[in-house]
């Protein structure tokens, strides 16, 4: 089969690989129709995630058709159109039994500090991902769901990560009616978090980024006020003034390890890998939120240390909430919202590229060229 493979930092190509097989009785093999590139993939692409091996296939946001099922699979049949959460999880361990699907203990031998994720290095279990014609889906009775007939395939695709994560990020922010919410980052996750914040009762939503085309999207798609952080010399002070000197009630970090805004932090974190990413956005969140407020961290960071302003967080009495999104827990509600027209996920898709052009897709998304917000890889017909 054809599959995207990693060749080293900033280099990927399409290779011929053997098709995946059933390796466990509850596995399925899925023929992928659409896969997306996520901001998280960029951390792998840039060589920041430890144990990212040459030859590994990325892709944790995908939909497809069931091609084959293992002998113990009961809930899926060959031919089903499925959406697959980015989390790989068993459904029965200590953590899954408590709803912590992104923190499963039975799927990742390489680390206990993170669960299983498709196509996301060996640090999350060493599973090949969905930017390929076929993918192995473990625990087929637990993760995937059949795509409802009325749901557009690209909306289903975005439910498997970006939309679920943005919505989860708004939830973790503990938004109460009337709250002022700041969202750092106007990528797919930030845009969806901003849009979701309104559903939870925000009275103002302010989105911060430095890419004007993304901020324009935040105004039009997420009905947000926007701030280009390069136009002010002190983002935190600006946000304080914009919130009557109080600070925002809730701040969501939808940026993660490759934050811009401080060249030293960026170069030591993202380029030299001396810390687990650049905590610029996280530190802005801690400083711009009001005392007693909540910071929700959706941005991804590596497993090493970062220089976070923890003292401020302590002294301000903040609540910090974070996790990889337990995607499937969000689905019933998200589908209601999509159906009602409250959430319109595929509005953010800007690029559709064939699998053979995956290297260019990565470059355009990574360098933020051509107005790119969300690239989708078109792998096959539905």
């Amino acid at each position: 089969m054809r599959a995207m493979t990693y060749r080293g930092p900033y280099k990927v190509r399409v290779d011929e690989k053997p098709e995946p097989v059933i390796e466990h009785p509850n596995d399925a093999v899925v023929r992928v129709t659409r896969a997306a590139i996520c901001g998280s993939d960029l951390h792998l692409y840039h060589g920041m995630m430890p144990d990212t091996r040459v030859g590994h296939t990325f892709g944790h946001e995908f939909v497809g058709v069931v091609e084959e099922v293992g002998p113990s699979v009961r809930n899926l049949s060959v031919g089903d159109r499925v959406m697959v959460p980015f989390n790989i999880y068993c459904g029965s361990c200590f953590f899954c039994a408590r709803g912590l699907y992104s923190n499963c203990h039975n799927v990742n031998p390489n680390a206990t500090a993170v669960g299983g994720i498709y196509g996301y290095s060996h640090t999350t279990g060493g599973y090949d991902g969905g930017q390929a014609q076929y993918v192995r889906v473990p625990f087929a009775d637990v993760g995937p769901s059949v795509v409802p007939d009325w749901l557009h395939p690209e909306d289903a695709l975005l439910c498997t990560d970006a939309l679920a994560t943005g919505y989860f990020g708004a939830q973790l922010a503990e938004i109460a009616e009337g709250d002022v919410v700041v969202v750092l980052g106007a990528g797919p996750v930030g845009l969806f978090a901003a849009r979701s914040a309104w559903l939870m009762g925000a009275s103002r939503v302010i989105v911060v980024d430095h890419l004007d085309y993304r901020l324009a999207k935040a105004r039009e798609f997420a009905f947000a006020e926007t701030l280009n952080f390069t136009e002010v010399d002190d983002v935190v002070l600006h946000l304080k003034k914009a919130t009557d000197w109080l600070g925002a009630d809730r701040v969501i970090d939808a940026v993660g390890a490759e934050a811009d805004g401080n060249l030293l932090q960026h170069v030591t974190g993202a380029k030299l890998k001396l810390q687990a990413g650049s905590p610029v956005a996280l530190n802005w969140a801690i400083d711009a939120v009001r005392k007693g407020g909540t910071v929700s961290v959706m941005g991804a960071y590596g497993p090493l240390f970062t220089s976070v302003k923890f003292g401020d967080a302590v002294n301000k009495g903040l609540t910090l909430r974070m996790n990889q999104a337990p995607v499937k827990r969000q689905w019933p509600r998200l589908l209601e919202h999509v159906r009602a027209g409250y959430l319109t996920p595929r509005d953010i898709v800007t690029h559709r590229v064939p699998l053979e052009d995956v290297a260019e897709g990565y470059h355009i998304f990574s360098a933020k060229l051509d107005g790119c917000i969300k690239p989708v890889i078109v792998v096959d017909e539905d």
Partner: protein
Amino acid sequence: MTDAETPYVAGPARRPVDRDALRTRIPGWGADLDPADRPSYPREVYDPAVTGAHWDLPEAQPELRPRERSVEHARLTPVFGTSAPLHGASGAVRRLAYRRFSEGRAAHWFLLLLGDRVDAVESHVRSLASRRPDDPVTETGVLAEARAHGIASRRGRVDVRHQVLDPVVVAGPWVAAVGAGAWAVRALVRRARR
């Protein structure tokens, strides 16, 4: 905005909101107003029956070749990925990281990062002897620059300051390898002359 007194005086218990105005402007405003009625609330809900799992402990996936694992795991997990088994010098470095250091130790992660760099060099070298050598031009996707308006897209952006470092990250190990090679050759030549 105002030189408001907000933080310096108590103010109302809740910020007043105009629900109707918000609902008119924003589709679905307030649909999830009740924090207790949100899908991930509370964070932990004990309900093993709801996931679709029909086992207490999943059956074990056969371990067809020795599988490295974190020393913080009491056992090999019942299911695991088989994407790219350890091999070569990078495999030795990674094996050491897993065997010797827990995830709590910085050495564990620095060794894994080192393994990644070694893997990239090993694989590039191996690819030169294969029918499909690595091609930095197609693999970095830079051919998209023209079509994707590379210059116009970057005009006035802050991240351009470090995007110039990207080629260094890509080419750095090569330059270092060539430099080290040249130095070694020179040293050998010098020794032979003596």
